[in-house]
């Protein structure tokens, strides 16, 4: 069970999307788990063949519990067997089973009544999704299929906003209790960036146009390359730099709450790739289909309040990260240029940073680096 944030203790396996025997590769989505952040798709870092499931759908297990066994990709006699768990958390003892359980499922289970009904009605069991105990196909599933309803769509539960609110409360209270925040603020001129965007987008159809948000994210990602002390985690051993630059992008959820899934290796993505990922993330946040890796490993968070909001945002760091960059809404304001007051489009960039990991001097340099990047948009 991957850890999808410092506040997550357990998750419920909703559905397996791969079966034992299936070959999988890095990035494949193998399961759906239910967490306080809604239904999350578990993607995988391994290659190989699913040997067997270790956890049945419907089961709630602590973070760190292996969900499945994967036999190594090499068909060597001694195939490496590794366990799926995106972030190895503290070892959690497995609760002893109450009574003797039937052995963990191999192929999908079908109840006796469902088997008979399926045979009578000539319904193929392949591809049906079970709604019975442990995901077993039961007679009601056959009846649904027989009446043309098709297999029951795997219905990830709707996002529980109250549950998410509790998760946010826990994480933010933890942050404000533990993290000595310091805050810096600067105003960045957007003239060059906006002109470049206008020029670039002029020849593009609307679906492929770049938004300012993509430039801001890329500028932060590139700046982090020269300010690594803001990219990573604060652990019991002190600051630990992130293995890559994975920018958590705060996305508000309709009805309340927010999540900050990661755009991985944002510094290495082209602006077009970054924009595509951003669109994809927003769409998936809205329909509640995030992937575990996106939630498990942001190394910094960027919150961009965008149009129609406020000029300045001072964020709360999402532990165990050490920094949060905030952008307010772009505004047109009087601005002094070479002794003249002129109207300019400006944006306020703020930094909330963990004083245990960095100091204000470096924070100021980090914001200045972001500013510099935004003055050369063509180089982003």
């Amino acid at each position, binding site marked *: 069970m991957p850890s999808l944030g410092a506040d997550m203790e357990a998750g419920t396996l909703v559905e397996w999307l791969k079966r034992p025997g299936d070959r999988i590769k890095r990035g494949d989505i193998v399961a759906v788990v239910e967490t306080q952040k809604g239904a999350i798709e578990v993607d995988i870092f391994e290659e190989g063949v699913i040997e067997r499931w270790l956890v049945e759908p419907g089961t709630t297990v602590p973070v760190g519990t292996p969900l499945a066994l994967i036999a190594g990709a090499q068909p060597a006699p001694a195939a490496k067997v590794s366990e799926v768990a995106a972030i190895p958390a503290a070892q959690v003892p497995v609760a002893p089973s109450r009574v003797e359980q039937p052995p963990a499922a191999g192929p999908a289970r079908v109840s*006796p009544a469902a*088997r008979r009904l399926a045979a009578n009605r000539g319904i193929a069991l392949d591809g049906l999704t079970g709604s019975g105990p442990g995901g*077993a196909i039961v007679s009601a599933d056959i009846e649904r299929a027989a009446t043309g309803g098709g297999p029951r769509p795997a219905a990830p539960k709707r996002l529980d906003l109250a549950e998410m609110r509790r998760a946010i409360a826990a994480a933010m209270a933890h942050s404000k209790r533990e993290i000595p925040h310091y805050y810096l603020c600067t105003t960045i001129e957007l003239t060059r960036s906006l002109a470049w965007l206008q020029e670039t987008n002029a020849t593009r159809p609307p679906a492929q146009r770049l938004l300012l948000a993509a430039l801001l994210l890329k500028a932060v990602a590139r700046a982090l390359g020269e300010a690594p002390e803001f990219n990573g985690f604060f652990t019991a051993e002190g600051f630990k730099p992130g293995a890559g630059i994975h920018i958590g992008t705060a996305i508000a959820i309709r009805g309340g709450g927010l999540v900050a899934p990661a755009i991985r290796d944002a510094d290495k993505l082209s602006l077009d790739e970054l924009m595509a990922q951003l669109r994809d993330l927003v769409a998936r946040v809205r329909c509640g289909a995030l992937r575990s890796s996106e939630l498990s490993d942001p190394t910094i968070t960027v919150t961009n309040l965008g149009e129609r909001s406020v000029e300045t945002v001072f964020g709360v760091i999402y532990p165990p990260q050490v920094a949060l960059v905030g952008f307010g809404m772009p505004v047109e304001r009087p601005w002094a240029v070479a002794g003249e007051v002129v109207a300019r489009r400006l944006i306020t960039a703020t930094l909330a940073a963990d004083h245990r990991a960095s100091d204000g001097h470096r924070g100021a340099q980090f914001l200045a680096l972001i500013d510099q990047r935004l003055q050369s948009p063509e180089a982003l």
Partner: protein
Amino acid sequence: MTNGVCEITYRDAVRESIREALLADQRVFLMGEDVGRYGGCYAVTKGLLDEFGSDRIRDTPLSESAFVGAGIGAALGGMRPIVEIMTVNFSLLALDQIVNNAATIRHMSGGQFEVPLVIRMATGAGRQLAAQHSHSLEGWYAHIPGLKVVTPATLEDARFMLAAALVDPNPVLIFEHVMLYNRSGLLSADEGPVDIRSAIVRRPGKHVTLVTYGGTLFKTLDAAETLAKEGVEAEVVDLRVLRPLDGETLLASVRKTRRAVIVDEGWRSGSLSAEISARIMEAAFWDLDAPVGRVCSAEVPIPYPHHLEEAALPQSAAIVAAAKAALGA
């Protein structure tokens, strides 16, 4: 009891059934430990000594084997004895009389002798009487051919099962759960008689069958009520008779709901609940949508402390959980 509807306890209903039997048939008499002057250890027979005299309400020595044996002899001799054993735990001292004599004489005599004996005993836990007074061993008796085993749970069954048992020419064991004696309710005069052959559906439902009897009936009905609030319609089958089991009623319900949870205060291992589960497997396997579930007592001698006793017994919350598990919910 007067005509019309009256408020009555389970204890009163049993006493009334004994009174009625004593009045109806001069061959009927009651004997057991403390049934006369003391009025019965659960006060079921209070007042009967004064009303019927010491010939028909007989206090016995503390010797279960002796007075059960005497009951068998009286039954063979043409009487209709009702023998009370304080609790099923003490009946183990009379196992030889019950299992080797009462249950076998009809068969061993080629039908020449019948043993129209009724034995009443208290069973079950919940009154902090500790391990030697709290067990539910009725399932053991349900193992024995030649015996009939009944478990009245409702007021109506408490009031009328005795009459049916006395009519039966063979030994009948009546198990009264100790937690039922104080339950009260309305019993209408036009109720009864009842049979001692069939199980009964106490609450209809379509999603899962909860099979139970005796002391756990009301916990199970409570669980069904809780489930109903969550949209699960549980059907509650009261077995009433543990031997011979009414497979027809049981299986009809399971075939309808496709799921069964057995609730039994006995232990799981080698138990009546195991027998019921096996019968469902034998006769309704192809109708099942889920494995049969069981809610039974923890496999320990029933503890004395209240909280441990409660923890050891089947409770509504566990029944609700087992029903949901059968539904995959």
